[in-house]
C-alpha cells in the first residue's frame, strides 16, 4: 500500500521533480541568477511548445468529432488515423502565397497577425496544470486573465480595420461589439467564486475547492453556466461565431489574410478555446483535484471534457442572429450574473464556510434562482402563447396533368 502511494505520489509530482533536477544540474556550473534565468526561459518555452503541440491534436480531435456528428469520417489520410492532419495543414499554410491587398494599411495589417497570439500564450502562464505545476502563481491571477484576455479584441479590430475590406470591417465591428458585451457577464459570474475564496490567485481557487471538498460547480451552478456561455461567445466559437459567419460576411475579420498570417488567427482561436476550458476547469470544476489519478491527468481530463462540450455545441446549435446575440448578453446574462452575485454575497454572510450546511444553502439558492427564471421566462399563466395545433396531413389533391 505504502509503495503504491509512493509511486502515485512520484507520478503526480514527476514534472515538478524534473524541473528541480534540471535546476540542480544547472546549479553545478552556473551562478544563481543564471539558473533562475534559464529556468524561467525553459518554463516559457515549455508553455509555448505546449500551446503549439496541443493545437496539433485539439484540431484533429475537433474535426474528427465534428465529422462524426455530421455523419462523415473527418480527416483520416495523413498519419495514423489522420492524426498528423494539422502538421500537413501547417506546411500548406507556410508555403501559401501571402496576399496583402494594395489598399490595406500594411503596417497595421501585418501587426494584427502578430497581436492575437501574444495574449493567448500569456494566459497559459497562470493556469495550474497540476499540484505545484503553475508557471507563475500571481496573487492577482484571475484579474490578470481578464486583463490579458481582452487584448485579443484589439488585435481583431486592427485586422478588421486595416484590411480595408467591407466584410472584414463588418466582422471586426461585430466582434468588438460581441466581445465587449460578453466580457461583462464572464467577469461578473466569477465574482461569486472569488467571494467564497477570498483570493484572486488561481492556485488558491483550486485549494479552496479542496477545503470545501466540493468543486464550485456544485456551489455556483448558475455562475458556471453563465461563465461558460459568455466565454464561448468571448472566443467567438459556434453558436456565437457571428464575427466569422461564413454565410453572411465571408470570413469576417480575417477575410483578407492568407498563408501564415491566417494560421496565426487560427492558432489564437484554438488556444483561446483551450484556455477558457482550462479556466472553467480551474475555477468551477476543482482544477487538478481528483482521486487516484495524478493531478495533471485530472486537469487535462476535465479540460478536454469541457472542450468536447464546446465541440458538441458547435455541432448541434445553429448560429444566433446579431440582435439575438446582443440582447442575450445584456438582457439575460448580465442581470442574472448580478442577481447571482448579490444572492451569493447574502448567503455567504449567513452560512459558515467550508460546511455541508453552507454547500446546501448555496445549492438551494441556485435552484431557487433557476426556478424563478423559468417562471419569468416561460409563465404558465400567460394566455397569449401560440397554441400548437397538429393538423393531420391530408393527401394533396391530385392535379390532372394532361
Amino acid at each position, binding site marked *: 500500500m505504502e509503495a503504491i502511494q509512493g509511486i502515485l505520489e512520484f507520478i503526480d509530482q514527476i514534472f515538478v521533480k524534473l524541473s528541480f533536477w534540471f535546476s540542480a544540474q544547472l546549479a553545478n556550473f552556473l551562478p544563481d541568477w543564471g539558473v533562475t534565468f534559464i529556468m524561467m526561459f525553459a518554463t*516559457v518555452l515549455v508553455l509555448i511548445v505546449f500551446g503549439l503541440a496541443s493545437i496539433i491534436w485539439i484540431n484533429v480531435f475537433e474535426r474528427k468529432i465534428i465529422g462524426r456528428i455530421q455523419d462523415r469520417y473527418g480527416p483520416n489520410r495523413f498519419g495514423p488515423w489522420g492524426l498528423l492532419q494539422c502538421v500537413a495543414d501547417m506546411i500548406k499554410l507556410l508555403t501559401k502565397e501571402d496576399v496583402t*491587398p494594395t489598399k490595406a494599411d500594411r503596417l497595421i495589417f501585418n501587426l494584427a497577425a502578430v497581436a492575437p497570439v501574444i495574449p493567448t500564450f500569456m494566459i497559459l502562464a497562470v493556469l495550474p496544470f497540476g499540484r505545484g505545476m503553475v508557471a507563475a502563481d500571481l496573487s492577482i491571477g484571475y484579474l490578470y486573465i481578464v486583463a490579458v484576455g481582452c487584448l485579443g479584441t484589439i488585435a481583431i479590430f486592427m485586422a478588421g480595420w486595416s484590411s480595408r475590406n467591407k466584410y472584414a470591417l463588418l466582422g471586426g465591428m461585430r466582434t468588438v461589439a460581441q466581445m465587449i458585451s460578453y466580457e461583462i457577464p464572464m467577469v461578473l459570474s466569477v465574482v461569486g467564486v472569488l*467571494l467564497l475564496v477570498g483570493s484572486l490567485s488561481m492556485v488558491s481557487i483550486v485549494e479552496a475547492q479542496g477545503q470545501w471538498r466540493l468543486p464550485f460547480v456544485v456551489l455556483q451552478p448558475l455562475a458556471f453556466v453563465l461563465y461558460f456561455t459568455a466565454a464561448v461567445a468571448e472566443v467567438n466559437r459556434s453558436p456565437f461565431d457571428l464575427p466569422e459567419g461564413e454565410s453572411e460576411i465571408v470570413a469576417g475579420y480575417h477575410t483578407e489574410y492568407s498563408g501564415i498570417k491566417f494560421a496565426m488567427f487560427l492558432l489564437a482561436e484554438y488556444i483561446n478555446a483551450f484556455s477558457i476550458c482550462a479556466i472553467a476547469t480551474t475555477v468551477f470544476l476543482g482544477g487538478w483535484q481528483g482521486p487516484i489519478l495524478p493531478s495533471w491527468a485530472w486537469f487535462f481530463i476535465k479540460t478536454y471534457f469541457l472542450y468536447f462540450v464546446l465541440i458538441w455545441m458547435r455541432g448541434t446549435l445553429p448560429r444566433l442572429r446579431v440582435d439575438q446575440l*446582443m440582447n442575450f448578453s445584456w438582457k439575460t446574462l448580465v442581470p442574472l450574473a448580478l442577481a447571482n452575485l448579490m444572492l451569493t454575497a447574502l448567503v455567504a*454572510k449567513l452560512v459558515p464556510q467550508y460546511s455541508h450546511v453552507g454547500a446546501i444553502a448555496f445549492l438551494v439558492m441556485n435552484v431557487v434562482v433557476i426556478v424563478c427564471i423559468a417562471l419569468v421566462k416561460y409563465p404558465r399563466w400567460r394566455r397569449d402563447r401560440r397554441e400548437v395545433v397538429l393538423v393531420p396531413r391530408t393527401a394533396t389533391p391530385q392535379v390532372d396533368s394532361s
Partner: protein
Amino acid sequence: MTDYALIGLLLVVAAIFPLIAMFFGFILRPRKPAPIKKSTYECGLETIGETWVRFRVQYYIYALIFVIFDVETVFLYPWAVAYNQLDLFALVEMFIFLMILLGGLLYAWRKGVLEWV
C-alpha cells in the same frame, strides 16, 4: 518578483514566436503578385465607395455601457476578495452600489438602447 519577470519574458517570447513563423513563411512561400490578385476581395465584384466610413452610433453606446460595467467590476473584485473580513456594512454598501448600476441598466433598457436595429 520572479513571477512577474516570467510574465515579461513570456510576453517577449510570445511576440517573437509569430515573427519567426512569419519569417519561415517569408522564405518558403512563392511570390507572384498581380494587380487583380492584390485587389480588395468582394466576391468577384469591384469595391464601390470608401470602406473606412463612419460607424453607427449604436456601437458607441454599447461601448459606453461596457466601460461603466467594466469599471464596476474593477470595484467588485477587491470587495469580493476582502469579503470574508468585512462586516455587514460592506454588504449593504455594495448592494446600494449594485442597485444604482442595475437602475442604470434598466434605464438603458427602457430607453431602447439595448435594442440592436
